[in-house]
């Protein structure tokens, strides 16, 4: 699996990134780079990370996502992580994983709705305690 089968779509000033279902570590790392490059190239204001097909969210994946959110924020972009599966949410909470400053939405539609509203005041990243 390589970075070229990661879909990054530009919709107005929002980037929609679909994370592949079972990415290996190099793909996850490539995803981060691809997102940041695309943000700069398209002058994007926000990023929607669609993780609805992701079945395993482990600590490595969570770290790269939260780093990407932070990097995008440094570049002035807002990130919404959309579509986390219920079972993935259970495991993420048990593991104590955090997605950093990412906003979250049930699905991509809701993520776009959320982006129409003003960004919330930045909060310190919280660790989910279970």
């Amino acid at each position, binding site marked *: 699996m390589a970075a070229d089968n990661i879909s990054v779509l530009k919709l107005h000033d929002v980037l929609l990134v679909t994370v592949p279902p079972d990415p290996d570590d190099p793909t996850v790392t490539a995803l981060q780079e691809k997102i940041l490059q695309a943000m700069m190239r398209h002058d994007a204001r926000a990023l929607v990370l669609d993780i609805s097909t992701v*079945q395993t969210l482990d*600590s490595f994946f969570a770290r790269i996502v939260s780093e990407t959110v932070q990097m995008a924020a440094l570049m002035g972009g807002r990130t919404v992580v959309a579509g986390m599966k219920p079972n993935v949410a259970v495991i993420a909470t048990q593991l104590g994983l955090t997605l950093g400053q990412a906003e979250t939405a049930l699905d991509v539609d809701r993520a776009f709705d959320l982006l129409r509203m003003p960004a919330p005041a930045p909060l310190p990243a919280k660790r989910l305690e279970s």
Partner: protein
Amino acid sequence: MTKQIPPIADSKAWRGYDHQPTRGELQITSESDIVVARQAIRQVCATLNFGLTDVTRIVTAASELTRNIYQYAGCGVMRWRALVEGAKTGLEVTFEDNGPGIPDVEQALERGFSTSRGMGLGLPGAKRLMDEMTVQSTAGKGTIVQIRKWVK
């Protein structure tokens, strides 16, 4: 490139793997084997009547522990076997390497402790996700981590 995991019933396709429906093993030698390990465990779980959330727990724990092998030891092996204990059934997965070992197992099981640039959630995380976990480690000789999950 990712190795494709053949279907469990297709035993002839399991050339590189010593595999039967109830037990098997996978050599972990590269980064892409982490994905192969996840797929293998997912397939084994599918034959054992685990619920979706438990499958995700076991697969996530396997992902963390095979990544530990790759990161700290470079290579190792993951073995699995189905468990039957009276009316209970379950799955046991063992992760073995000949790496540097863990100097202080107690400390490694604390959340947030990491000697690499990880989040320090791998080993304690795996423990929380499973019903049982044991860690045996000898400095300079290697580490064996064994996890178990019972079908609810």
